[in-house]
Protein backbone atom coordinates (compact mmCIF):
# COMPACT_ATOMS: atom_id res chain seq x y z
CA UNK A 1 0.00 0.00 0.00
CA UNK A 2 1.40 3.45 -0.96
CA UNK A 3 1.88 6.41 1.37
CA UNK A 4 -1.10 8.23 -0.14
CA UNK A 5 -3.52 5.44 0.74
CA UNK A 6 -1.96 4.88 4.14
CA UNK A 7 -2.31 8.56 5.01
CA UNK A 8 -6.02 8.40 4.21
CA UNK A 9 -6.31 5.62 6.80
CA UNK A 10 -4.20 7.28 9.48
CA UNK A 11 -7.14 9.13 10.97
CA UNK A 12 -9.23 6.01 11.51
CA UNK A 13 -6.07 4.19 12.69
CA UNK A 14 -5.47 6.89 15.28
CA UNK A 15 -9.14 6.82 16.36
CA UNK A 16 -9.18 3.02 16.63
CA UNK A 17 -11.89 2.85 13.96
CA UNK A 18 -10.11 0.46 11.64
CA UNK A 19 -10.52 -3.30 11.17
CA UNK A 20 -7.69 -5.59 12.23
CA UNK A 21 -6.54 -6.47 8.69
CA UNK A 22 -6.13 -2.84 7.68
CA UNK A 23 -4.61 -2.01 11.03
CA UNK A 24 -1.89 -4.61 10.46
CA UNK A 25 -1.16 -3.18 6.99
CA UNK A 26 -0.88 0.36 8.37
CA UNK A 27 1.40 -0.80 11.19
CA UNK A 28 3.68 -2.63 8.73
CA UNK A 29 3.87 0.47 6.55
CA UNK A 30 4.54 2.77 9.48
CA UNK A 31 7.40 0.56 10.64
CA UNK A 32 9.27 1.30 7.42
CA UNK A 33 8.10 4.83 6.47
CA UNK A 34 9.34 7.87 8.38
CA UNK A 35 7.18 10.29 6.41
CA UNK A 36 3.93 8.52 7.36
CA UNK A 37 5.09 8.21 10.98
CA UNK A 38 5.68 11.97 10.94
CA UNK A 39 2.17 12.53 9.51
CA UNK A 40 0.68 10.33 12.24
CA UNK A 41 2.48 12.26 14.98
CA UNK A 42 1.33 15.54 13.47
CA UNK A 43 -2.28 14.33 13.45
CA UNK A 44 -1.96 13.30 17.06
CA UNK A 45 -0.58 16.73 17.93
CA UNK A 46 -3.40 18.49 16.05
CA UNK A 47 -5.85 16.32 18.02
CA UNK A 48 -4.30 17.51 21.27
CA UNK A 49 -4.41 21.12 20.08
CA UNK A 50 -8.14 20.80 19.49
CA UNK A 51 -8.63 20.37 23.25
CA UNK A 52 -7.89 24.09 23.65
CA UNK A 53 -11.20 24.97 21.98
CA UNK A 54 -13.23 25.13 25.17
CA UNK A 55 -16.97 24.89 25.47
CA UNK A 56 -19.26 27.24 27.39
CA UNK A 57 -21.46 26.91 30.45
CA UNK A 58 -25.25 26.79 30.08
CA UNK A 59 -27.22 29.84 31.27
CA UNK A 60 -27.56 30.14 35.05
CA UNK A 61 -31.28 29.37 35.16
CA UNK A 62 -31.05 26.68 32.49
CA UNK A 63 -32.23 26.67 28.92
CA UNK A 64 -35.59 25.08 29.72
CA UNK A 65 -37.06 28.33 31.08
CA UNK A 66 -36.00 30.19 27.94
CA UNK A 67 -37.38 27.49 25.68
CA UNK A 68 -40.73 27.37 27.50
CA UNK A 69 -41.00 31.17 27.30
CA UNK A 70 -40.24 31.00 23.57
CA UNK A 71 -42.89 28.33 23.18
CA UNK A 72 -45.49 30.48 24.97
CA UNK A 73 -44.68 33.39 22.64
CA UNK A 74 -44.97 31.11 19.63
CA UNK A 75 -48.34 29.78 20.80
CA UNK A 76 -49.64 33.33 21.24
CA UNK A 77 -48.52 34.37 17.76
CA UNK A 78 -49.97 31.18 16.36
CA UNK A 79 -53.39 31.84 17.92
CA UNK A 80 -53.56 35.32 16.34
CA UNK A 81 -52.31 33.99 13.04
CA UNK A 82 -54.80 31.14 13.11
CA UNK A 83 -57.69 33.65 13.01
CA UNK A 84 -56.73 34.32 9.39
CA UNK A 85 -55.06 31.05 8.62
CA UNK A 86 -57.79 28.65 9.69
CA UNK A 87 -60.48 29.82 7.22
CA UNK A 88 -57.88 29.95 4.44
CA UNK A 89 -56.72 26.43 5.24
CA UNK A 90 -60.31 25.22 5.41
CA UNK A 91 -60.98 26.74 2.02
CA UNK A 92 -57.83 25.16 0.62
CA UNK A 93 -58.72 21.79 2.14
CA UNK A 94 -62.17 21.88 0.55
CA UNK A 95 -60.81 23.13 -2.75
CA UNK A 96 -58.87 19.93 -3.30
CA UNK A 97 -61.91 17.67 -3.05
CA UNK A 98 -64.19 16.90 -6.05
CA UNK A 99 -67.02 18.91 -4.44
CA UNK A 100 -64.64 21.77 -3.79
CA UNK A 101 -63.76 22.10 -7.45
CA UNK A 102 -67.46 21.83 -8.41
CA UNK A 103 -68.33 24.61 -5.93
CA UNK A 104 -65.54 26.83 -7.21
CA UNK A 105 -66.61 26.22 -10.84
CA UNK A 106 -70.27 27.05 -10.12
CA UNK A 107 -69.13 30.19 -8.30
CA UNK A 108 -67.03 31.34 -11.27
CA UNK A 109 -69.76 30.56 -13.83
CA UNK A 110 -72.20 32.54 -11.65
CA UNK A 111 -69.94 35.58 -11.73
CA UNK A 112 -69.55 35.40 -15.51
CA UNK A 113 -73.29 34.99 -16.16
CA UNK A 114 -74.09 37.85 -13.75
CA UNK A 115 -71.71 40.15 -15.56
CA UNK A 116 -73.16 39.27 -18.99
CA UNK A 117 -76.73 39.88 -17.78
CA UNK A 118 -75.80 43.21 -16.23
CA UNK A 119 -74.10 44.38 -19.44
CA UNK A 120 -77.12 43.35 -21.51
CA UNK A 121 -79.60 45.13 -19.20
CA UNK A 122 -77.60 48.34 -19.16
CA UNK A 123 -77.54 48.46 -22.95
CA UNK A 124 -81.31 47.99 -23.06
CA UNK A 125 -82.13 50.78 -20.51
CA UNK A 126 -84.24 53.49 -22.39
CA UNK A 127 -83.38 57.23 -22.49
CA UNK A 128 -80.22 56.86 -20.49
CA UNK A 129 -78.40 59.45 -22.59
CA UNK A 130 -81.23 61.97 -22.31
CA UNK A 131 -81.29 61.61 -18.56
CA UNK A 132 -77.60 62.26 -18.40
CA UNK A 133 -77.93 65.42 -20.53
CA UNK A 134 -80.71 66.91 -18.39
CA UNK A 135 -78.71 66.24 -15.26
CA UNK A 136 -75.76 68.05 -16.79
CA UNK A 137 -77.98 71.02 -17.70
CA UNK A 138 -79.34 71.25 -14.17
CA UNK A 139 -75.83 72.00 -12.95
CA UNK A 140 -75.01 74.37 -15.78
CA UNK A 141 -75.10 77.94 -14.38
CA UNK A 142 -75.90 79.38 -17.84
CA UNK A 143 -79.61 78.66 -17.30
CA UNK A 144 -79.61 81.35 -14.60
CA UNK A 145 -77.99 84.01 -16.84
CA UNK A 146 -81.32 85.71 -17.65
CA UNK A 147 -82.88 87.08 -14.48
CA UNK A 148 -86.68 86.96 -14.10
CA UNK A 149 -88.26 90.39 -14.83
CA UNK A 150 -88.84 92.75 -11.87
CA UNK A 151 -87.00 90.38 -9.48
CA UNK A 152 -85.05 91.80 -6.54
CA UNK A 153 -81.74 90.99 -8.15
CA UNK A 154 -82.83 92.62 -11.44
CA UNK A 155 -83.68 95.82 -9.60
CA UNK A 156 -80.39 95.78 -7.67
CA UNK A 157 -78.34 95.58 -10.81
CA UNK A 158 -80.41 98.36 -12.44
CA UNK A 159 -80.02 100.61 -9.40
CA UNK A 160 -76.30 99.95 -9.35
CA UNK A 161 -75.98 100.77 -13.06
CA UNK A 162 -77.98 103.98 -12.59
CA UNK A 163 -75.79 105.07 -9.65
CA UNK A 164 -72.59 104.52 -11.61
CA UNK A 165 -74.02 106.52 -14.54
CA UNK A 166 -74.94 109.40 -12.20
CA UNK A 167 -71.46 109.48 -10.72
CA UNK A 168 -69.89 109.50 -14.17
Amino acid at each position, binding site marked *: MGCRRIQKRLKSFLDGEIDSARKAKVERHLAGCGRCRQALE*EMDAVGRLLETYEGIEPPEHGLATLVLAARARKEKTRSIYSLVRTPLLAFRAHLFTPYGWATASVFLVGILVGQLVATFLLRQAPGQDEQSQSSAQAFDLEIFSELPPNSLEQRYWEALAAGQGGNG
Partner: protein
Amino acid sequence: MEGIARGDEEAFRRLVDRYERQILNLAYRYCGDAQESRDLAQEIFLKVFLNAGRWKPRARFSTWLFRVAVNHCLNHTRRRAREPVVMAKPNPALSEAAGQDCAGIPTTSGSSPPDSAERQRAARVRQAVLSLPPRQRLALILHRYHGFSYQEIADHMECSLGAVESLLVRAMDRLRASLGDLARGEQ
Protein backbone atom coordinates in the same frame (compact mmCIF):
# COMPACT_ATOMS: atom_id res chain seq x y z
CA MET B 1 -41.05 11.69 25.70
CA GLU B 2 -44.67 10.69 25.87
CA GLY B 3 -45.12 13.18 28.69
CA ILE B 4 -43.46 15.91 26.64
CA ALA B 5 -45.67 15.10 23.66
CA ARG B 6 -48.66 15.69 25.96
CA GLY B 7 -47.16 19.06 26.96
CA ASP B 8 -45.67 18.05 30.34
CA GLU B 9 -43.32 20.95 31.11
CA GLU B 10 -41.65 19.24 34.08
CA ALA B 11 -40.64 16.28 31.93
CA PHE B 12 -39.30 18.72 29.36
CA ARG B 13 -37.26 20.56 32.01
CA ARG B 14 -35.66 17.29 33.11
CA LEU B 15 -34.78 16.44 29.52
CA VAL B 16 -33.25 19.87 28.85
CA ASP B 17 -31.25 19.73 32.09
CA ARG B 18 -29.79 16.44 30.99
CA TYR B 19 -28.78 17.42 27.46
CA GLU B 20 -28.39 21.22 27.47
CA ARG B 21 -24.63 21.21 28.01
CA GLN B 22 -24.03 18.83 25.10
CA ILE B 23 -26.35 20.62 22.67
CA LEU B 24 -25.19 24.09 23.70
CA ASN B 25 -21.54 23.15 23.21
CA LEU B 26 -22.22 21.43 19.91
CA ALA B 27 -23.84 24.67 18.72
CA TYR B 28 -21.09 26.80 20.27
CA ARG B 29 -18.20 24.92 18.68
CA TYR B 30 -20.10 24.89 15.41
CA CYS B 31 -20.88 28.62 15.18
CA GLY B 32 -18.19 30.08 17.48
CA ASP B 33 -20.48 32.63 19.09
CA ALA B 34 -21.91 32.20 22.59
CA GLN B 35 -25.11 34.21 22.09
CA GLU B 36 -25.83 32.64 18.74
CA SER B 37 -25.23 29.17 20.15
CA ARG B 38 -27.71 29.82 22.97
CA ASP B 39 -30.29 30.83 20.40
CA LEU B 40 -29.50 27.74 18.35
CA ALA B 41 -29.75 25.43 21.37
CA GLN B 42 -33.01 27.08 22.36
CA GLU B 43 -34.43 26.57 18.87
CA ILE B 44 -33.28 22.94 18.87
CA PHE B 45 -35.03 22.19 22.18
CA LEU B 46 -38.13 24.05 21.03
CA LYS B 47 -38.20 21.84 17.94
CA VAL B 48 -37.88 18.78 20.18
CA PHE B 49 -40.77 19.97 22.35
CA LEU B 50 -43.02 20.75 19.40
CA ASN B 51 -42.19 17.49 17.58
CA ALA B 52 -41.97 15.16 20.58
CA GLY B 53 -44.89 13.15 19.23
CA ARG B 54 -42.86 12.19 16.15
CA TRP B 55 -40.15 10.38 18.11
CA LYS B 56 -40.43 6.61 17.71
CA PRO B 57 -39.13 4.49 20.61
CA ARG B 58 -37.24 2.23 18.16
CA ALA B 59 -34.50 4.90 17.89
CA ARG B 60 -32.45 6.07 20.86
CA PHE B 61 -33.58 9.46 22.06
CA SER B 62 -30.06 10.91 22.02
CA THR B 63 -29.66 9.86 18.36
CA TRP B 64 -32.87 11.63 17.47
CA LEU B 65 -31.91 14.72 19.46
CA PHE B 66 -28.48 14.99 17.83
CA ARG B 67 -30.04 14.44 14.43
CA VAL B 68 -32.37 17.38 15.06
CA ALA B 69 -29.39 19.42 16.30
CA VAL B 70 -27.19 18.56 13.30
CA ASN B 71 -29.94 19.41 10.82
CA HIS B 72 -30.73 22.62 12.62
CA CYS B 73 -27.07 23.71 12.58
CA LEU B 74 -26.74 22.95 8.86
CA ASN B 75 -29.98 24.79 8.07
CA HIS B 76 -28.79 27.71 10.15
CA THR B 77 -25.64 27.96 8.00
CA ARG B 78 -27.72 27.83 4.81
CA ARG B 79 -30.00 30.57 6.12
CA ARG B 80 -27.03 32.70 7.14
CA ALA B 81 -25.47 32.29 3.71
CA ARG B 82 -28.60 33.80 2.14
CA GLU B 83 -28.77 36.73 4.54
CA PRO B 84 -26.81 39.93 3.95
CA VAL B 85 -23.91 40.40 6.36
CA VAL B 86 -24.88 42.88 9.08
CA MET B 87 -22.08 42.51 11.60
CA ALA B 88 -18.52 41.33 11.40
CA LYS B 89 -17.77 38.05 13.15
CA PRO B 90 -16.25 38.42 16.61
CA ASN B 91 -12.50 38.56 16.65
CA PRO B 92 -11.42 35.18 17.99
CA ALA B 93 -8.08 36.60 19.08
CA LEU B 94 -9.90 38.80 21.59
CA SER B 95 -12.69 36.51 22.63
CA GLU B 96 -10.85 33.97 24.75
CA ALA B 97 -9.69 36.61 27.16
CA ALA B 98 -10.27 36.22 30.90
CA GLY B 99 -11.77 32.74 30.68
CA GLN B 100 -14.87 34.09 29.00
CA ASP B 101 -16.43 34.01 25.60
CA CYS B 102 -16.70 37.32 23.71
CA ALA B 103 -20.27 37.69 25.05
CA GLY B 104 -18.95 37.43 28.61
CA ILE B 105 -20.21 33.87 29.02
CA PRO B 106 -17.92 31.67 31.10
CA THR B 107 -16.07 28.92 29.28
CA THR B 108 -16.04 25.38 30.65
CA SER B 109 -12.62 25.71 32.26
CA GLY B 110 -13.69 28.99 33.87
CA SER B 111 -10.11 30.21 34.12
CA SER B 112 -8.17 32.44 31.80
CA PRO B 113 -5.34 30.94 29.78
CA PRO B 114 -2.14 31.89 31.60
CA ASP B 115 -0.35 33.86 28.91
CA SER B 116 -0.98 35.57 25.63
CA ALA B 117 0.92 32.91 23.63
CA GLU B 118 -1.49 30.23 24.83
CA ARG B 119 -4.42 32.54 24.24
CA GLN B 120 -3.29 33.16 20.69
CA ARG B 121 -2.81 29.45 20.16
CA ALA B 122 -6.35 28.74 21.41
CA ALA B 123 -7.70 31.47 19.14
CA ARG B 124 -5.94 29.95 16.12
CA VAL B 125 -7.29 26.49 16.89
CA ARG B 126 -10.79 27.89 17.24
CA GLN B 127 -10.48 29.80 13.99
CA ALA B 128 -9.19 26.71 12.21
CA VAL B 129 -12.18 24.66 13.40
CA LEU B 130 -14.63 27.42 12.45
CA SER B 131 -13.16 27.68 8.95
CA LEU B 132 -13.89 24.02 8.17
CA PRO B 133 -16.83 23.35 5.82
CA PRO B 134 -20.05 22.77 7.82
CA ARG B 135 -20.32 18.98 7.52
CA GLN B 136 -16.63 18.39 8.19
CA ARG B 137 -16.87 20.70 11.21
CA LEU B 138 -19.88 18.85 12.59
CA ALA B 139 -18.29 15.43 12.12
CA LEU B 140 -15.13 16.62 13.84
CA ILE B 141 -17.05 18.19 16.75
CA LEU B 142 -19.17 15.07 17.27
CA HIS B 143 -16.09 12.89 17.26
CA ARG B 144 -13.54 15.02 19.08
CA TYR B 145 -15.65 16.83 21.67
CA HIS B 146 -18.56 14.44 22.18
CA GLY B 147 -16.66 11.20 21.79
CA PHE B 148 -19.08 9.60 19.35
CA SER B 149 -17.90 6.63 17.29
CA TYR B 150 -17.91 6.81 13.48
CA GLN B 151 -21.09 4.71 13.44
CA GLU B 152 -22.86 7.04 15.87
CA ILE B 153 -21.79 10.06 13.82
CA ALA B 154 -23.15 8.35 10.70
CA ASP B 155 -26.49 7.90 12.53
CA HIS B 156 -26.55 11.52 13.70
CA MET B 157 -25.61 12.93 10.30
CA GLU B 158 -27.71 10.43 8.34
CA CYS B 159 -24.87 9.31 6.09
CA SER B 160 -22.72 6.22 5.54
CA LEU B 161 -19.74 5.13 7.62
CA GLY B 162 -17.47 5.76 4.63
CA ALA B 163 -18.80 9.30 4.31
CA VAL B 164 -18.00 9.99 7.98
CA GLU B 165 -14.47 8.67 7.55
CA SER B 166 -14.02 10.82 4.46
CA LEU B 167 -15.36 13.92 6.26
CA LEU B 168 -12.98 13.38 9.16
CA VAL B 169 -9.95 12.72 6.93
CA ARG B 170 -10.61 15.89 4.94
CA ALA B 171 -11.18 17.87 8.15
CA MET B 172 -7.88 16.61 9.54
CA ASP B 173 -6.05 17.45 6.29
CA ARG B 174 -7.33 21.01 6.51
CA LEU B 175 -6.45 21.31 10.17
CA ARG B 176 -2.95 20.00 9.51
CA ALA B 177 -2.56 22.60 6.79
CA SER B 178 -3.69 25.46 9.03
CA LEU B 179 -2.22 24.29 12.35
CA GLY B 180 0.75 22.28 11.13
CA ASP B 181 3.33 24.71 12.51
CA LEU B 182 1.69 24.68 15.96
CA ALA B 183 1.40 20.89 15.87
CA ARG B 184 5.09 20.48 14.99
CA GLY B 185 5.92 22.75 17.92
CA GLU B 186 3.83 20.50 20.17
CA GLN B 187 5.72 17.33 19.22
